[in-house]
């Protein structure tokens, strides 16, 4: 664990930067503007065609994976400090980083399956 700590901090800050720059506009469009009807949803064909572009695939993988690792790292320490769960260190770390890793694998697999 100790040996990969610098890597985890790097993923935390990279993911925090990705989320800070990219999440507000995407959340505004997909989460609010489209469901509220301010904006038409992308048709299935154009959404799929857009996601299949090689650059878009890379973008989407980074967009999903790094912020998940950002969450894993930050939430892990919040659980330690906020809920005083220091004795569950290993379990919490495995659950947090495991979730981020699972999300990354799932995103990569799905992007690959888009064909």
């Amino acid at each position, binding site marked *: 664990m100790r040996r990969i700590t610098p890597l985890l901090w790097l993923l935390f800050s990279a993911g*925090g930067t990705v989320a800070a720059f*990219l999440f507000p506009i995407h959340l505004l469009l997909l989460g609010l503007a489209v469901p509220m009807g301010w904006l038409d*949803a992308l048709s299935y064909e154009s959404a799929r065609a857009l996601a299949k572009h090689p650059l878009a695939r890379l973008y989407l993988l980074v967009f999903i994976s790094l912020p998940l690792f950002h969450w894993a790292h930050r939430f892990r320490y919040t659980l330690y400090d906020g809920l005083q769960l220091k004795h569950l260190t290993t379990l919490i770390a495995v659950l947090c980083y495991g979730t981020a890793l699972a999300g990354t694998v799932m995103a990569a697999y799905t992007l690959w399956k888009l064909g």
Partner: protein
Amino acid sequence: MSAGPRYTLYHPGWYRRRVSVWWWLQNRSYAGFVLRELTSVFVAFFAGVYLWQLRALAQGPEAYAQFLARLKTPLFLALDAVAFVFVLFHTITWFNLTPKAMVVRLRGKRVPDHVVVGLNYVAWLVVSGVLAFILLRVRS
């Protein structure tokens, strides 16, 4: 990171006051700290929504239509509205921390903090504008 202290037989335990789990509500800056840390939950939530959208795209038109319909439910509208506020809070706190995490020097002089923060906001607006432009153009 370490497991708790180990006591030996003749070593007395230390006196420690129990701290409430709600310690962070007693002070504004503590509450701000915990709210800032909790933005990560909403960051993960939205990453999950995007992953869900990708899976729907891979599965077919019906799954995609179902995904869009689900986002219109009051539950997801409320979650997305709250998430938007928290994500904005993340962006603002993240940018304001940047000069503390990274000292930028130009010709041997330290670039003032507010310039570093300001450039972050400018870059953010440009990136958001470009993304909105691309995503809106695909629609027309």
